[in-house]
């Protein structure tokens, strides 16, 4: 969401159109031999397009000769949403699309996504196959409106070669953020003795600061992510300390590079210049390509005392404009319902953490051939305490996101303490909360 303005503008238009069209839900003739065309709009990389999307379509069309799946793919997220919003506002929405968690919720609120309640009831879909913490992100007023496919769960990637060279023991499950800091210190080195650090303990992960908040407090950033009324970060000293702790990784201990030290390198871990990296499953392929000998450790544990992790991800949704909701649903089922073909194919790609519990235990996810001995289960830690990184889930997120980036930006460069910045942020956020309706 690069331009908040455009997002808001299109949202307003979207809202108007949804009202104008009066959510005309056309029922489909249920004869299953009439030719039907479904438009499927995705934002995948070429590898997933070639190895998952195309075979899935082929297979589905073989099983349903009367159905044609028209596939369209835009790789980059921001462009994807620009086009998706234009299509929805222009009454040309694709039948099945792939929004991220917070976008799905905003669309559901605005009536652009069809509730799946009746379908789930009719087809007796076993919702217990999903982690309830994940599924709840795709539910509104008790109705499920999208089927989640993956989560952006985080873990600590660590470079085994660099650990061995420094004689530092590998991280163990149950380690704390203090252990993490000590490990990072031991691995931050000036290898050529020119007074400049050449190898950092950990690459930048400061945009994941909410992770430290969850880890130390056990709560999210707001009291209610759907109807936020209170900005909990400002009232909880532990949350403020968490932000300062991340800034201190750069400013005090310098185990994490500052912007100058990083000099815009896209990925220090892939370059073998940082020993650890806190990031999600999607980086696995990059590190394999870069020949990094890595393993995974679960996220360290904070003052909350329980492992936490990230819940948001992507899902498949059906447009409320769809003229063939039954067929669209049938296809979504094929992609992401329990036991679905689509997710099963994705497992082989080593790109994601599945949202379905059965697939989380699948050996193809846990012990893939490409990653012998790598602790993939690290991504599954914290499943009882999952939080969305897009907090609040409410459409005001885009404005909040821009606000914290601006305020905390000063903390990261040491111009303000976390306490000062959060106090200022609190004022801005209070104003947003007071006008919450404007964002809806």
């Amino acid at each position, binding site marked *: 969401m690069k*331009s908040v303005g455009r997002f808001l503008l299109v949202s307003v238009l979207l809202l108007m159109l949804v009202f104008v069209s009066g959510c005309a839900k056309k029922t489909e003739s249920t004869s299953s031999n009439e030719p039907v065309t479904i438009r499927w709009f995705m934002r995948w990389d070429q590898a997933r397009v070639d190895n998952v999307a195309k075979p899935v379509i082929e297979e589905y069309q073989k099983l349903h000769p009367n159905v044609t799946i028209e596939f369209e793919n835009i790789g980059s997220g921001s462009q994807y949403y620009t086009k998706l919003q234009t299509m929805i506002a*222009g009454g040309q929405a694709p039948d099945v699309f792939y929004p991220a968690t917070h976008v799905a919720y905003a669309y559901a609120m605005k009536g652009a996504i069809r509730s799946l309640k009746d379908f789930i009831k009719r087809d007796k879909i076993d919702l217990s196959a999903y982690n309830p913490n994940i599924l709840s992100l795709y539910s509104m007023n008790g109705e499920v409106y999208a089927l989640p496919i993956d989560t952006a769960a985080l873990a600590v990637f660590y470079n085994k070669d660099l650990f061995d060279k420094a004689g530092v023991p590998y991280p163990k499950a149950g380690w704390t953020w203090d252990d993490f800091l000590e490990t990072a210190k031991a691995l931050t080195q000036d290898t050529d003795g020119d007074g400049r650090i050449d190898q950092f303990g950990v690459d930048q992960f400061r945009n994941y600061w909410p992770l430290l908040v969850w880890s130390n407090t056990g709560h999210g950033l707001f009291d209610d992510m759907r109807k936020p009324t209170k900005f909990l970060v400002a009232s909880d000293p532990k949350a403020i300390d968490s932000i300062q702790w991340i800034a201190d990784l750069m400013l005090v201990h310098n185990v994490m590079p500052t912007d100058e030290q990083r000099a815009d390198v896209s990925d220090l871990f892939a370059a073998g210049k940082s020993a650890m990296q806190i990031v999600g499953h999607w980086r696995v392929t990059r590190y394999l390509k870069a020949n990094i000998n890595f393993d995974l450790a679960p996220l360290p544990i904070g003052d909350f005392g329980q492992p936490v992790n990230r819940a948001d991800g992507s899902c498949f949704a059906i447009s409320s404009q769809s003229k063939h909701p039954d067929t669209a649903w049938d296809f979504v089922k094929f992609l992401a319902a329990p036991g679905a073909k689509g997710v099963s194919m994705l497992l082989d790609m080593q790109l994601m953490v599945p949202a379905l519990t059965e697939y989380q235990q699948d050996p193809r996810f846990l012990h893939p051939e490409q990653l012998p001995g790598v602790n993939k289960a690290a991504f599954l830690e914290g499943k009882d305490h999952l939080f969305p990184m897009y907090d609040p889930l409410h459409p005001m997120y885009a404005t909040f996101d821009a606000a914290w980036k601006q305020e905390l930006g000063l903390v990261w460069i040491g111009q303000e303490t976390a306490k000062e910045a959060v106090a200022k942020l609190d004022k801005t956020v209070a104003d947003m909360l007071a006008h919450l309706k404007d964002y809806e």
Partner: protein
Amino acid sequence: METAIDLKQIQARQLFLKLSMRVFIYAMLILGALFIFIPFGWTLSTALKTDQQVLAYPPVWIPSPVVWENFVKALTIRPFHIYYFNTFLIAFICVTAQVLSSSLVAYGFARFRFPGRNLLFFVLLSTMMLPSNLLLVPRFILFKTLGWLDTFLPLTIPHFFGSAFSIFLMRQYLMGIPLELDEAAKIDGAGPLRVYSSIIFPLVRPALGAIAVFEFVSVWRDFMGPLIYLSSEKHYTVSLGLAAFKSEFFTEWNLFMAAAVVAMLPPLIVFFIAQKYFISGASLTGSGASKG
């Protein structure tokens, strides 16, 4: 005698000053040129790297080994020949349409007095002030209603109506062309269209060249238009093909840069070809091209 020697010395000194000044200026220009070439150099260097070297830190300037195959791979991994054909087709139609319509409309604004002329011109200019994002959805709905989605029509037809910027540019240029030329033709019995085709059109070539270049480059670079209106891959343009190298999980930087280097060539070539027009335009006599 002495004075002659003095004179020679003075001349020599002047020559030396002149030369050293020139050397200094050239040195500065070369420095500036190098500075401007850094991003392009980086693009080219990345285009020739292996996957491992792309992410190397500290950054590597000279790729080793040099992977020329990246260019082949980048242009064959997707049907780029189709994208190039599409983009050239769209650009050709747009440039032709823009050059004809803008010069014709500007001719009307510059040479004819009619009621509401200034108001019309003002309305035309005000269309420039509207942010294009505001028009995105209404235009989309318009073209959807016409049934033009996933065709080249939404990307080409609007150009037949000229654009405020090029019409404004042409009109300013036309103001500098002496009215006597039109009048001489009129006395010889030429009608308005004849004046336009025989007198005006040949004289405004430099401005047309400029408009053609702007138009070509903007169509070549256009991303939003193709993104919104085209959906089947057989209609994709080069900018969409380039964007396809970037995805959320990873970007194949080396292939992306290789494709980008090739995509830069057409606008560059067009610019060099059109440069001749600019220069020949400057040497035109009798037209106050420097005015306006």
